[in-house]
């Protein structure tokens, strides 16, 4: 009874949180609160959430050390870029090498292009995964990293499709969804789409992880030989996890292309994957809620650290260590500290829940009271 009552109040709290989030989203999207800069960072946070959670599905839940996320993002991003840029702009964008004549006539709506990008990434992942997923730990890491580089190198070279190293710019922003409700005309801006897709992705991966497939993934992570002995089809589950991870990475890449308005092969250098690696290490390998929190902390944190790159003058003295590049040095030192001293990240393999928060406070409180008594 008590737990039932508790759960009910927790459910109310959850609904309240969702409502608050939606109101905040509305206020920021319609420019009542905040500005373009904040909007952009929040959008970036949401996109990073999609990619990081999908990477955690592969690395944290299935135990496959894959470093191919940047390559799959590139596939999604380029699909959106190639198919959504208006046909009349193509000639001026592909000014060095003209675009393939059939491709240059095709323009499809953003959401279809996004879906195609995700599916294409998943398809490539299946092709790559079939041979590569037989490999173990570090070999798998280097092979997936190799494939992500090959994808990037191919994109740099097929100039008639991708415009090579110049990249594609003037990618249109995500279209607003207009809904007519009687007298009200509500327009849902790009932020709604990005956050909606992010929430949907996280929900889908959460459901997947807690399904029978998810249990198979975790069994493979803990001990693949034992899992195989229990009758789990290793190959099928590994490829499935890898392909689903790639699908969401592709979706994330597509959203990123539209948010930034430009894609070029250099963006998808494999060091980009390191960002997501940092996020899942910080959030906890095998924790979805941890990854979501870490995505926001890392992405927003990287923006906040930007002041390290600006010259700083304190009391009329110019402090020489503050110059371009310091931000990334601090960022990488933080990554090292995290790896060396806080190996489990924020949540380890646990998920955030009200019960966990209450437990955490309970553990903190008694020691607090004791120390107070001691002081008296």
């Amino acid at each position: 009874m008590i737990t039932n009552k508790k759960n009910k109040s927790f459910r109310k709290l959850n609904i309240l949180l969702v409502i608050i989030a939606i109101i905040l989203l509305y206020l920021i999207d319609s420019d009542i609160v905040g500005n373009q800069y904040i909007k952009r960072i929040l959008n970036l946070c949401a996109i990073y959430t999609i990619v990081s959670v999908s990477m955690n599905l592969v690395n944290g839940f299935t135990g496959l050390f894959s470093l191919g996320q940047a390559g799959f993002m590139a596939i999604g991003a380029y699909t959106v870029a190639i198919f959504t840029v208006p046909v009349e702009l193509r000639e001026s964008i592909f000014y060095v090498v003209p675009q393939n004549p059939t491709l240059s006539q095709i323009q499809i709506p953003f959401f279809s292009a996004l879906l195609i990008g995700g599916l294409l990434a998943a398809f490539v992942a299946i092709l790559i995964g079939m041979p590569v997923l037989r490999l173990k730990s570090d070999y798998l890491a280097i092979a997936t990293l190799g494939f992500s580089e090959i994808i990037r190198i191919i994109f740099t070279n097929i100039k008639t499709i991708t415009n090579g190293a110049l990249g594609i710019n003037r990618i249109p922003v995500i279209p607003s969804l207009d809904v007519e409700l009687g007298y009200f005309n509500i327009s849902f801006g790009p932020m709604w789409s990005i956050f909606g897709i992010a929430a949907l992705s996280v929900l889908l991966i959460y459901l997947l992880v807690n399904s029978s497939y998810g249990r198979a993934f975790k069994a493979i992570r803990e001990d693949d030989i034992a899992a195989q002995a229990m009758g789990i089809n290793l190959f099928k589950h590994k490829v499935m996890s890898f392909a689903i991870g790639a699908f969401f990475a592709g979706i994330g890449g597509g959203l990123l292309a539209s948010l930034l308005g430009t894609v070029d092969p250099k963006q998808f250098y494999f060091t980009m994957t390191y960002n997501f690696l940092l996020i899942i290490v910080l959030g906890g390998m095998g924790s979805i809620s941890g990854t979501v929190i870490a995505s926001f902390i890392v992405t927003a944190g990287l923006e906040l650290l930007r002041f390290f790159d600006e010259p700083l003058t304190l009391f009329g003295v110019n402090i020489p260590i503050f110059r371009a590049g310091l931000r990334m040095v601090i960022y990488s030192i933080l990554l090292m500290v995290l790896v060396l001293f806080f190996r489990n990240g924020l949540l380890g393999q646990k998920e955030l829940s009200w019960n966990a928060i209450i437990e955490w406070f309970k553990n903190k409180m008694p020691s607090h009271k004791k120390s107070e008594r001691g002081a008296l």
Partner: protein
Amino acid sequence: MTFEIFLQQLANGISVGSLYALIAIGYTMVYGILRLINFAHGDIFMMAAYFMIFSMVNFGLPWYVSTVIVIAATILLGVVIEKVAYKPLRDASRMSIMISAIGVSFLLQNLATYLFTGVPKGFPDIPFLTRAISFGNVSLSVVTVVTPIITIISLFVVLFITNKTKIGMAMRAVSKDFETAKLMGININNVISSTFVIGSGLAAIGAILWGSKYATVIPVMGVMPGLKCFIAAVLGGIGNTTGAVIGGFILGMSEIMLVSFLPPLTGYRDAIAFVILIIVLLIKPTGLLGEKVTDKV
């Protein structure tokens, strides 16, 4: 293609291949002992190139003094990295230690960008190495000829150390079985440090030769050679020094030959290594000279 050009490309391929081989030895030794892809190895190589610039351009030291200083500084860097980033994680999962290696690599790149800026820096000219010599119609720089010789000498030195000395015996014991070696009273930390000494020292020599050949240094210059040399080590059979050298030669040769015989595919030069890697991993994961390892349950 004339015969002269072919010879020129052949010499070029051997020289690039032996540079890969020099760096690959470091990878294969560390992997043999720690079972760790030392992602930072390529960046140690990059730092060595910057050390050389510092010592020759900023301090104006002659090249032979600089070479000694650079090798010493690079070895120090390699050992410090091992002590700070890898030693505390000796009992952690392989994924954690690999993430740590990636972190070190990322840190070194960012540090180099911060300290030396991302603008390419000219590598100091070592007149002895950059002079051109000609054999008939084929004209080569000294560095192209010297590199394979240095690589072969280094290989024999490393083979001598691992096969004939006491520390080499300890290295072989540790790479066979970490736990048992520990029980036999081998000081694991000394053994690991000495592999990093050898690996970093060879990376420093490689960096000096590389710099004399390509003449520019940037903070990300270590990334691609680093990955390729790891691939060379896998191709040769990871853990096997001779294999790493052979792998390096094959890789360097195939890159140069692709570029010279199929010029339209020049853009794919960097992809070749990964294609080779994937083929090797699928057909013979133990590499050309590697021993077969069976998984214990």
